C-alpha cells in the first residue's frame, strides 16, 4: 500500500499550501473586515458616463 504514502504526502502538501495561503490572508489583513465585502459585491459598478461597446476596439 505504498501508494498511500504518496497520496498522504500529496494531500498534506496541498493542505500545507492552503494553510500558508490562509496565514497570508490573516496576516495581510484580508479578514480584518468581515462585513463590508458582502455588501460591496452588490454594487453595480457600471458607469453612466462611459459607453460600452459592442465590438472589440476598446480594451484596457
Amino acid at each position, binding site marked *: 500500500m505504498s501508494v498511500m504514502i504518496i497520496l498522504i504526502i500529496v494531500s498534506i502538501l*496541498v493542505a500545507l499550501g492552503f494553510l500558508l495561503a490562509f496565514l497570508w490572508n490573516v496576516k495581510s489583513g484580508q479578514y480584518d473586515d468581515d462585513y463590508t465585502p458582502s455588501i460591496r459585491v452588490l454594487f453595480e459598478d457600471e458607469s453612466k458616463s462611459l459607453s460600452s*461597446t459592442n465590438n472589440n476596439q476598446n480594451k484596457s
Partner: protein
Amino acid sequence: MQVEKFYYDNRIVKNFAYATILWGVVGMLAGLWVALQLVFPSLNITQYGTFGRLRPLHTNAVIFAFVGNGIFMGVYYSLQRLCKARMFSDKLSKIHFWGWQLIIVAAAITLPLGITAGKEYAELEWPIDIAITIIWVVFGWNMFGTIIKRREKHLYVAIWFYIATFITVAVLHLVNSFELPVTLFKSYSWYAGVQDALVQWWYGHNAVAFFLTTPYLGLMYYYLPKAAQRPIYSYKLSIIHFWALIFLYIWAGPHHLLYTALPNWAQSLGVVFSLMLIFPSWGGMINGLLTLRGAWDKVRDDVILKFMVVAITAYGMATFEGPMLSLKSVNAISHYTDWIVAHVHVGALGWNGMLTFGILYWLIPKIFKTELYSKKLANQHFWLGTLGIIFYAVPMYWAGFAQSAMWKQFTEAGQLKYSFLETVTYMKPFYAMRSLGGTLYLIGALIMVYNIIKTVKKGSLVADEATEAAPLQKEFKPHSSEHWHRKIERRPVQLMVFSLIVILIGGAVEMIPTFLIKSNVPTISSVKPYTALELEGRDIYVREGCYVCHSQMIRPFRSETERYGEYSKAGEFVYDHPFQWGSKRTGPDLAREGTGNLKKSDGWHFRHFRDPSSMSEGSIMPAYPFLLENDLDISNTKAKIKAMQTLGVPYEKGYEEKAIEDLVSQSLKISNNLISDSILISPKKEVIALIAYMQRLGKDISIDKP
C-alpha cells in the same frame, strides 16, 4: 487618485454560456438514452452505441462539458467584477475556451470508439489527459493574472473557492492520470489493483468535491446575493466553512471503498473525515438559505431565486446523505445499488443543474442588456426541472433499497432467496420511471434553450462593458537595483502555487515508479500474471466499459460470499492495470466468474455474448455480436506485455517473444472447446480473448480441483 477606465469582457462569458447550454442538452440527452437502454436493451445499437461506451460519454459530458463550461462562464463573469479588472489576457481566454471545447469533442469521439483508460470519470486516454493539463494551466494562468492585476484589495470569498478548485483539480488530475502509453490510444494505469483503486477514488471523490462543489459554492456566493439583492447571511461563516471544507474534503475518498480489499484503517480514516464534512457543507447551505431570511416573498415571484433555492436545498440534502452513506453499516446496504445513482443525481440535477439554470437566466439578460424573454416559460422550466428531479430520484431510491434487500434475502433453509436475474427484472419498472423523470428535466432544459434564444434576439451583446475603478495603491516601491529574488519574495501566492506544482511534478516523477513497482511483489504466491490472450481479453473488457455495470470486488458478507464465492483479497489484484472493481452492480459481480459454482462453459459465454437474453431470460445486458465478427488485434500484444513488464508484472524472461505463440495456442484450445459444443468460430475473433479472460477471473486462489 486617478480613476481608471476599463472594459469587462462579456464575449468570453457569452461563449462559455452557449457552450454550457449546448453540452448540457447533449449530456442530458445521452443520459436519457442510456437510461432507456436499461429498459429496452435493443437500443444498444452497433458497437459504438452500447451502454458500456455511452454511459462514460454521459458522465463526462455532464461533469466536464456542462458543469465545466458552467464553472468557466460563472468565473469569467464574476472574477472580472470582483477584481475590478478585465480578464488578464483575451488570448488566454480564447485558448481556454476553444481548447476546452476541443477536449470535449475529442472525448465525444474517442469514448464511443472504445478508447478509454477504464477508470470512472477519468476515462479519457493519455493524449487528451495532457491536453486537459495544458488547458487547465491556461485557465489558472488567466485567473491568477487577473487576480494579480486587480483593483480591489480584498479577495471576495468566491475567489478563494475558485483558487481552491484550480489547484486541487490540477493535483488530482496529475496524480490519477499517471499512466504508461502503449500506443497513441492505449495506456495502462501506472498503479495496480488496490493501489489504483485508492488513487482513483481519491481522485473520484475530490472530482465531486473540487469540480462539482467548491466552484459552484463560489458561484453561489456571487450570484445568490446578486439575484436576491441582499448580502450573504454571514460573510464570516463563508470564510470559516471554506477553509474547513477544503481541509476536510481531500481525506474522504476511501468511503468509496468500504468493505473492499482496502486496508481497514484507511477505510476508517475516510469514514471519519466524511462524517466531519457535514459541518462545512451545511455551513454553506445554511449561509445560502439564510441569505433569503426576511425575503422569502421575493422567492415567490422571482424564478431565478426559485432555481437557486432548490439548488441549495438539493446541495443540503446530498451533503447530508453523503456522510450517512459513508457510515459502514449504511454503505453495506447502499453500495453497488441505484441508491448511489439517485444520490449523485440529486447533486447533479439539483445542485449543479438548477444553480446553472438560475445563473443563466440572471446572466444572459445582463450581458445582452435586455429583459428575459418570458418569465412564464422560465417558471415552467423550474417546475419541470423540480418534478423531473423527484421523478428521477424517488424510483431510484426505491430501486436501490429494494435490490439491496433482495440481494441479501435468505430463505429459512439458509439459501439465497433471489437469483441475481430476478433482482434485475424487478428493477425494470423503476428504470422506466426514472427515464420519465429524466425526460421532464430535459424538456425543461429545452424550454430554457428557446427562452434564451428569444432573449438573445431581443437584446444585443455588450461585448466590452465599460466601467471605472481606482487602481490598487502600491504599498511598496522597489529599489532600482535589487536582487531578482526579492521580486518573487513579494509574491507569496504565486510563489506558493509554483513551488507546489514544481514539488508535485518532481516528487511524482521520482517516487511513483520506484514506490509502486517494488510493492507489486505478489503477496499471494498463486497469483500469476495474465496470459497474452487473457490480457487482450481484459483490454476488451476495459474497452467495452464492462466495469460500468459489473463489479469485481466481493465484500465479506455472507450474502455475497454465498452468491459469488470467497471474498476478494488485495493480493489478487496486483497485476490489474487498471483495477476493474467497478462501483455498480447492474449486472452480477464477476470477480470469481471463472471458478466455483459460477463457472460456465466456454459455449455458455459465447452464446451469452451473442445474445444475453438467450441464456438469461429478461437480461438487460447489451448483445455483443460484433465480438464474434471482429478479429482480435494482436499487432500490439508484444508491446503490451513489455509495458506490463515495465510496470513490474513478473512475466517469465522472454515471454514477450513467445506471447503471440502462446496466444494462438490458447485461442485454439478455446475454439476447439466451442466446436465440441457445436459452435464453429475462428480462433482469431475477439470473443475468444474475452472468454479466456472470463474463465480466468478468480482462478488464482480458487480451491477447485484442476
